[in-house]
């Protein structure tokens, strides 16, 4: 891992398009400012990891559950043709 030492007011550049500014240092906390293209997302590491873990679990879903899940959607107020079909059954 590359480590750099910066003081308040100084900047780090990542690639051509990303800047990290040291805005404030107070006690053991540093406040950082970011300039990056809008398609680059910037997250606190623990947030990213939390979402990535949730996604990893979601990627394990199999097809068996499908039928049961549709039934959990709240019934909409709009009359659907399916309901008419049920009434005629």
């Amino acid at each position: 891992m590359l480590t750099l030492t910066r003081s308040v007011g100084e900047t780090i550049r990542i690639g051509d398009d990303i800047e990290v500014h040291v805005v404030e240092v107070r006690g053991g906390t540093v406040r950082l400012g970011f300039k990056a293209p809008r398609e680059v997302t910037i997250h606190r590491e623990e947030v990213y990891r939390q979402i990535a873990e949730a996604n990893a679990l979601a990627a394990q879903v199999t097809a068996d559950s499908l039928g049961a899940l549709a039934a959990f959607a709240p019934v909409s107020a709009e009359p659907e043709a399916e309901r008419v079909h049920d009434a005629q059954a």
Partner: protein
Amino acid sequence: MAALTAPAAASTATAPSVQVLYFAEPIPGFPGRRDYVLVPGDTAGLLFWLQSVAPDGPRFLAVSARDFFPDYRPVVSLAVRAELGLDDVDQAQILCLVTVPDGDPDEATANLRAPVVVAPSTHCARQVVQSDLDLPLRRRLRR
């Protein structure tokens, strides 16, 4: 008695079709995967498979947020809207990824903290992490 000739599928005004989606920012946890197909999982537009086009890429089950969680209003910033080419958030398709612990549908949960937002005109998509920590990572689908 009226003849029941019309098949149920024909009664749906616009049957959902397969969409090819582009994620400029890959879904967290699956770097490098930007191309997905969104395949309907049912005829009512409630369930979808979000499948990476890569042979070893991930597949997710997703629910239509508008149908399952009608009061859910995720924040989609101006920057994200610009990236996706989304003029109007109300036009966006909002999907929540589903987890089914132990394969038990009764325990299925949807991720409301990080919805997948799809811009219908550009087919650009992104998983948009919400700042509101009250939004659950695991919201049970069964009521």
